[in-house]
């Protein structure tokens, strides 16, 4: 039983991370129909910004700030202006393919220009375990869980309680009407991208201490985020959270109880099952179609 609880918590921690990454993914889709196949690499990259800063002597928190800043500039602003904007009019697929190329570009760039080896990454949390009710829970997992869930909760509150947040939601649901109502739709979309950049930077700082900073980190995370977003319901931020947590837990439990050989199929199996029975995801709403 203790084992199960430990797995559950670890699963929630992983899931919280997935949720973090999936939320940004969903935001980009909602506001601009962007499917970002480079999302995993977006999570991989900021850690390297931070490492570079630390290699030049910057203390942890400064490096973190630099990482977030660079992430906002490159993965937020530059990404939107240089890649997304020119291609938006032509439908979903060309942009999706371009982000696939981007994913490869970022991965190979880090591998070539920084290192092909895994680099250790510091964490503000101690590496020991905490004992709660006879179960060993790592401080790391807790840190990830708390940080990720806080970020997501803050985001949710921000989206539903602030004026800008509600404007963003409106722009996402119906950009044409939003524009007619005078909302600065372009800017709101930019905010969505910047938000994503911030979220992935946070995720990067959280995941790198555990898995070490490596150029290939993006692969599994990217796929997980994609699946989490869909399972949750592609058109709701809340759904991304639900999807992420669910996926993390199922994956961890599945890894322990299901044969090693087919473990990789678990996330996709979950995906297909959910889609078949609830086509809009667990939390999603049916998209309105204009006839």
């Amino acid at each position, binding site marked *: 039983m203790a084992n199960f609880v430990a797995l559950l918590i670890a699963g929630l921690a992983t899931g919280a991370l997935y949720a973090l990454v999936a939320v940004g993914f969903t935001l980009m889709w909602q506001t601009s129909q962007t499917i970002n196949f480079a999302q995993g690499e977006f999570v991989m990259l900021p850690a390297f910004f931070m490492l570079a800063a630390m290699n030049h002597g910057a203390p942890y928190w400064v490096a973190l700030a630099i990482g977030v800043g660079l992430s906002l500039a490159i993965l937020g602003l530059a990404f939107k202006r*240089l*890649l997304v904007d*020119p*291609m938006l*009019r*032509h*439908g979903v*697929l*060309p*942009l999706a*393919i*371009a982000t*696939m*190329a*981007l994913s*490869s*570009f970022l991965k*190979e*760039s880090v591998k*070539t220009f920084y290192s092909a080896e895994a680099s250790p990454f510091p964490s503000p949390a101690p590496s020991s375990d905490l004992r709660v009710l006879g179960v060993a829970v790592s401080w790391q997992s807790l840190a990830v869980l708390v940080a990720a869930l806080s970020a997501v909760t803050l985001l949710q509150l921000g989206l539903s309680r602030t004026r800008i947040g509600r404007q963003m939601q409106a722009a996402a649901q119906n950009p044409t009407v939003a524009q007619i109502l005078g909302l600065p739709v372009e800017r709101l979309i930019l905010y969505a991208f910047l938000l994503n950049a911030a979220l992935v930077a946070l995720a990067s700082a959280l995941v790198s201490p555990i898995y070490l900073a490596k150029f290939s980190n993006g692969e599994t995370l990217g796929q997980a985020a994609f699946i989490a977003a*869909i399972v949750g319901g592609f058109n709701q931020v809340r759904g991304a959270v639900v999807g992420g947590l669910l996926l993390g837990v199922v994956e961890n439990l599945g890894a322990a109880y299901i044969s090693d*050989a*087919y473990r*990789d*199929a678990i996330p*996709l*199996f979950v*995906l*297909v099952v959910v*889609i*078949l029975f609830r*086509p809009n995801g667990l939390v999603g709403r049916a998209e309105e179609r204009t*006839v």
Partner: protein
Amino acid sequence: MTGAAPGRIAIAAGLAVAAALIVAPLFLRRYGLYLVSDWAVMTIAAMGLNLTLGYAGQVSLAQGAFVGVGAYSAAILTTHGWPFATAMALALALSFAVGWALGYPALRVRHHYLAFVTLAFSTLAFLVFRNEAWLTGGVEGIDGVPRPSLFGWSMRPPLAYAYFCLAALALAAAATAWLIRSPWGRAFLALRENPLRAQSLGVDTRRYTLLAFAIGSALGGAAGALYAPLVGLVEPPAFTLALSLNLLMMVIVGGSGYFLGPFLGALIAVMAPEWLRAWENYYLILYAALVMGLLVISPTGILGLVDRYALHRMAAEASAARTALKPSIGES
């Protein structure tokens, strides 16, 4: 397809290219012949995907898996002494059937959920290839896949097999061209351009979409059956999601929905490593940058760019024609 009459220039260019393709292999050495064969095989797979994506408007992330299905079918049969023709037939039939089976429930749920189901299938197929060693040789795969003989002539020499692949490509292209020009092709185009309107005209969009996907998958299988003897060794890593994504990229970069798109896309995918060979370490980075750049410049692919220009000219001509016809239509 690209609108009305292809024009004399296009036909002449086409014949020149075809002639070049027939003659060129004679001047190539082993590696060059391998590239030509690889290009032919990839084009067939990309053509299939183009049918699904470019004509029926469905995203398939499993084309690579179907290539795998075809490759393993061919490998298993031919290494047990069965003739290549049988292997090809199985590859086609099996891929078609699996495609239909995947598509049937997926399309019932929601139109774009085929993408997810194919994603799942892609992973599942890879896992089966890797784990079911009794059938597929597991991690080690199947080695020594023989090349066929045609009327007693062995296709084993690189030159012969290159011509074999080119001939297969020609056949597949002819069949696909026929399909696209038939009423089926018209229905495919309709359901891509405007499924709502198509339905209101009696087009059973679901059935045609399913057909396009199943036929596209079958072409993937055919490509696989040709691929196996080409490389001789069939192993799981060759048929991962990466291949599916690569094929997708070929279709988009070449120009989705254009008949020649896959030809161009496959050319770029196969030749890029060669052209970028000088920058060995940076080849992948440059290739990725190339793809991104191409797409930013022309999201509708290379042929999309060409078409835009041609459309521009045709619109001007039609405008002139309309002006000349005004009196007979009663417009003021």
